């Protein structure tokens, strides 16, 4: 054999012979790697120059920011005065000015709760979570509706704007999550009748559009109850939304239940636990943790769909902005209005989807260990 048999001195590691580093190397590798990629890069750049620059100019550079009346709009770029002039309404709806501190208090409480639940390091998640699901809604409702402890009563028809959007979203999730868990358990039940009812319930809501559900809630629901009973419009919408989303929630939770190995339940059985203990102590805690990303994604969908209440005449964030567009003093600001509405929803949804991705990554690494 002509080749050497043993190496006694090790070869030191060397730097790669490269054309691929530094800013130029990066450009070459990622943007101009061959004629096809180079062409694509130039096309994309042209597209950006053609589309993005006028947008920036319109939205930022030539836009009007200051003022409070229509005269402040120069007409060259966007006129954000339209938004700032009615910002209070966009946030609080028709909520009486004197009582708006109550809304602020609820907002603050909500922000604290979410921060506590979202930051993994903080302790006592279980109790804070329980409070968020039970205590907070009751407290917030009492504060917002008023009519006791010397608080002025504010009926729900005066609720609106961002505050109403958040109310619908929170009630939607707080209502649909527990119902969804029950439905998911029911769908896996060994009792045919229980399983059947749950399957029909879930598949029914998943098969119809939310609008028809809202229509049903607003025109059919009043028919189902005795004539004397007065049914709040917001409450009707909330019931529809809760049922609708509980079906989606149930499917998410079911995915988590299926991912828990059979051995977990068998072990719990072997320890002598009954059905509800097994579920509450062993299976559900694991399953729910596993599907947090799915729950957050469902919540994002729910949040986006709160805007549909506009169609049955509730004044959520979108509806308030839309109503502002018909103000005869402020005609012709449709672009500004809808862009702002889009931005508001986008900020909420994008941050939630980022959070869900973060949790997903954490879960993945957690499982490997």
């Amino acid at each position: 054999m002509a080749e050497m048999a043993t190496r006694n001195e090790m070869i030191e590691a060397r730097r790669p012979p490269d054309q691929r580093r530094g800013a130029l190397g990066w450009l070459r590798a990622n943007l101009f790697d061959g004629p096809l990629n180079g062409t694509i890069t130039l096309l994309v750049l042209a597209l950006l120059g053609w589309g993005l620059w006028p947008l920036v100019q319109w939205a930022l550079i030539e836009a009007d920011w200051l003022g409070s009346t229509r005269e402040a709009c120069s007409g060259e770029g966007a006129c954000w005065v339209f938004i700032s002039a009615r910002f209070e309404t966009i946030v609080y709806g028709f909520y009486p000015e004197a009582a708006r501190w109550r809304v602020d208090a609820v907002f603050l409480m909500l922000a604290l709760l979410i921060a506590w639940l979202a930051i993994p390091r903080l302790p006592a998640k279980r109790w804070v979570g329980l409070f968020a699901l039970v205590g907070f809604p009751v407290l917030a409702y009492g504060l917002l509706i008023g009519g006791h402890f010397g608080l002025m009563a504010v009926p729900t028809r005066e609720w609106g704007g961002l505050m109403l959007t958040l109310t619908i979203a929170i009630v939607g999730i707080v209502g649909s999550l527990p119902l969804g868990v029950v439905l998911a358990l029911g769908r896996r039940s060994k009792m045919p009748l229980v399983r059947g009812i749950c399957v029909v319930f879930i598949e029914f809501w998943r098969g119809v559009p939310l609008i028809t559900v809202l229509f049903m809630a607003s025109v059919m629901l009043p028919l189902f109850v005795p004539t004397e009973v007065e049914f709040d419009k917001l409450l009707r919408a909330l019931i529809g939304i809760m049922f609708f989303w509980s079906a989606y929630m149930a499917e998410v939770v079911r995915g988590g239940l299926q991912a828990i190995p059979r051995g977990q339940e068998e072990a719990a059985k072997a320890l002598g636990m009954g059905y509800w203990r097994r579920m509450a102590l062993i299976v559900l805690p694991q399953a729910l943790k596993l599907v947090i990303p799915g729950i957050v994604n469902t919540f994002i969908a729910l949040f986006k769909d709160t805007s549909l209440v506009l169609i049955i005449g509730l004044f959520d964030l979108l509806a308030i902005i839309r109503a502002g567009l018909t103000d005869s003093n402020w005609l012709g600001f449709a672009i500004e209005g809808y862009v702002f509405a889009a931005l508001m929803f986008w900020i909420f949804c994008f941050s939630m989807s980022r959070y869900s991705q973060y949790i997903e990554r954490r879960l993945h690494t957690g499982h490997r260990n």
Partner: protein
Amino acid sequence: MLRSSSSERGPLWRDPAVRALVIQALLLLGLLGLILLMVTNTLANLEARGITTGLGFLQERAGFSIPQSLIDYSGDSTYGRTFVVGLLNTLLVSGLGIVLATLIGFAVGIARLSSNWLLARLATTYVEIFRNIPLLVQILFWYFAVLQALPSPRQSLSLFEALFLNVRGLMVPAPVAQPGFEATLWALALALAAVVSLTLYARRLQVRTGKALPVYRLGALILIGLPLAVFLITGRPLAWDLPALSGFNFKGGITVIPELMALWLALSIYTASFIAEIVRSGIQSVPQGQVEAARAISLPGNITLRKVVIPQAMRVIVPQLTSQYLNLIKNSSLATAIGYPDLVAVFAGTTLNQTGQAIEIIAMTMAVYLLISLVVSALMNLYNARTLLKER
């Protein structure tokens, strides 16, 4: 067996089988009670409001007009006909939306995997922007902020004096078949048949001799060439009815109403952002080892894609894609927010308001969507069963 020896039997209420039976019986009773309560309440309410139940109203004269209809419709038509008109309009915008959303979605999804950094970033930005803005906001934006801001018919934007875009919608020329045009249609049918048999023949040829024909190129040639040749030989027997301004509006051609355009654009762009994610994750779900193995047995790139990557990616993509299609169909009901005459806007909107037959109308509307969902899900299950990976 514990239950076989009666001496070891515990009290009846601790027997799991008895418990299950009792629970289900109570549940059934409760459910029946609830239904009974609702029915009595409803009947009482309907009587109090003087509404008669039943589907009789479907035969009555509707008396309102609908801005877009695929079948003959006038104010003299019946409420039953409004149901059909609305349903067809729903199917129209859903079909158009599915096609466009699929095209954009696949393009963006593949672009996200591009090795070109800029293109991949652009695609990611598209996805992150459009899937995080409510569809309703997007529909309203396109309709009120873009299409309603277009000029009046007199100042239309036009392309080659044949396409006109204005606040009333998009006017496009309408093809009018002249005598002799049937020949082109026949040629098209013939070409289709030829392509099908070519594909079959090519497959048989390959099985027999191993030779591969350039089926795609030949097929495209036949499919385009043959009808075109016949069309030219027969003296181009197709006239175009051009839209033309007359007075304050356009006459002739086909008008795509702005409501349809806004809804179509918004549905497609929104759904495409989800489809793009599905396509990306589907392609990424095929393990790298599969591509390596294909390379190691020297399969060329296009065959690797066609025979190894795509079949495996589609298995992941198709079920999710179907559920996006269903979402799109359900979401087309947002039409009602801008007055596009879909099933919900026409039937569950105007017709319901005029007749007050809430229960019948909502039930019929929901039944349509449920039926579509069930049919599509059934087809999906069939597909899944067929493509299921065989495992131990």
